[in-house]
């Protein structure tokens, strides 16, 4: 019905090495999906394949019925906001310059960002971090602050699909929760689909609408949080993390290491 992204039988990898095998799922508008899995389970590869950064020789990827494979690089950048796990930005630019780079897909090659773009960039900086960063040098920020700036760069062009590779990895406890709460509200308000990978299962349990569980390049489970119980979550998460216990705390769930050993 209001399906945004559909992925069917996707296989992807690097050269001869297949990392992702036969993955199928979909993301709806306004939905926040969390991709969970151990190191090397294929989370990043999946996100990169959707962006066309990793070869995906088989399967189909449709964004609002338009094949992601056939999109031009510009069109793809307009439709997808992608935040890489690591950014290579080593340029001495101001934070504002960095955020405004996110407007590029909507601009012609000779065009520069306008006042409306600046206003939106400023608002994002104020909401996610601190408006006072705008004039600061990007390289003078801490790792976590840089991550928030790149997050703002990803969001500034309001693409319908957000693919975020561990957007919270460098953030402190408080910022991490704030970011996810903000992201969830944003997805609902803008009717954007969000697919994010994370190693923090408790963050996913708390904020995601759906969990996608990856193991060894295969999708081994999907959990709709609205219908989840501690038991079903425990069973699903044990498949990817080994023995874990899931506890119910008020309206939320918490995962902790089981004492099987």
């Amino acid at each position, binding site marked *: 019905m209001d399906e945004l992204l559909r992925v069917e039988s996707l296989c992807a990898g690097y050269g001869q090495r297949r990392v992702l095998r036969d993955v199928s799922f979909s993301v709806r508008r306004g939905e926040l999906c969390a991709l969970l899995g151990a190191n090397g389970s294929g989370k990043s590869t999946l996100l990169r394949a959707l*962006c*066309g*950064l990793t070869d995906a020789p088989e399967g189909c990827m449709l964004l609002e019925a338009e094949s992601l494979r056939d999109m*031009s*690089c*510009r069109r793809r*950048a*307009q439709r*997808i906001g*992608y935040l*890489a796990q690591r*950014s*290579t*930005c*080593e*340029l*001495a*630019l*101001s934070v504002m*310059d960095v955020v405004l*780079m*996110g407007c*590029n*897909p*909507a601009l012609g*090659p*000779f065009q*520069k960002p306008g006042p409306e773009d600046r206003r939106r960039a400023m608002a994002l900086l104020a909401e996610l971090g601190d408006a006072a960063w705008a*004039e600061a040098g990007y390289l003078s920020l801490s790792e976590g602050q840089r991550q928030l700036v790149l997050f703002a760069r990803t969001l500034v062009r309001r693409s319908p699909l957000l693919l975020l590779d561990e957007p919270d990895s460098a953030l402190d406890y408080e910022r991490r929760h704030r970011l996810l709460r903000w992201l969830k509200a944003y997805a609902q308000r803008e009717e954007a689909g969000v697919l994010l990978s994370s190693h923090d299962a408790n963050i996913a349990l708390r904020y995601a609408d759906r969990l996608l569980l990856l193991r060894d390049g295969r999708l081994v489970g999907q959990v709709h949080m609205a219908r989840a119980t501690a038991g079903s979550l425990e069973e699903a998460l044990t498949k990817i993390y080994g023995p874990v216990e899931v506890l119910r705390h008020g309206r939320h769930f918490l995962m902790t290491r089981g004492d099987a050993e």
Partner: protein
Amino acid sequence: MKTGKKLALYFAAALVVTGAAFAASLAVGRYPIDWTRLAADGMDRRVFFTLRLPRTCMALLAGFALGIAGGVYQTVFQNPLAAPDIIGVSSGASAGAAAAILFFGGGVTLTALLAFAGGMTAVLAVLALAGFVRQRGVTGIVLAGIAVNALTQSMLMLMKLTADPEKQLAAIEFWTMGSFADVTMQKLWGVLPLVAAGLLCLFLLHRQIILLGLGEEDARMLGVPVGAMRCAVLLLATLVTGSVVSMTGLISFIGLLAPHIARLLTRSSRFSTTVLAGLAGGALLLVADVLARSIGSSEVPVSIVTSLLGVPFLLRLMWGERNG
């Protein structure tokens, strides 16, 4: 001090220094010009308009162009050591010039044309080769550049070997050290449109150039068609460099040094730093040319002076960087 104000200050200072160097270059020379007789039709007027003025303008233009192109190469290759040599402009142009001197008598126009053709051919070969090899991205271009450079160098050596040592070999060697001695108004008008067009396009593409400096994947996900854009930008920078050196011979070090000077001053990667690099290049080359024609009893090739002048300047800035 605020960044914007500081930048304006650097630009003002660069303009003053470049202006002073420009004036000095007009004033200094073998033939002392009597400025009061400039209006009259005489020797002073002819020396000024046929020798001094075109030479000075060319030095400014060349320095400005090499500084900008150098900054663009360094940004696109994400490497502070990148210079026109890396993708074969210099060696291609040298081979072209050598061929003109060896096989076609070394006429001024023909040497310039063949040097230009040589530089462009070498770079096109590098980009085509990089398209075929498995190694994608900047690394592919650098590897292809090494291969084409090696080939052109061996061709150049072969030509030098067969050259007549008295005249041809000397002419080839002299060409590769650069000089503004033979610049005429005609030559200046010959390259000006090409250099201006190339620089204008680079200015217009400045945001894309910075985005290329982020690296392949970031740039792609920000909507830059990386392969095509990188080719276009490199060809434009090559057009600018190739046009200049085809008229003057190889000018070493400016393309590498000017962007570093600008960056050490502004500590910023914005495109304004690259423009400042252009002014720094212009000022440096003007001063170098003034020295080239006044330190010896006969003219010294300008590349010798650019290095002698540039190295202490760079060391001074690095020293300041360490203690600043």
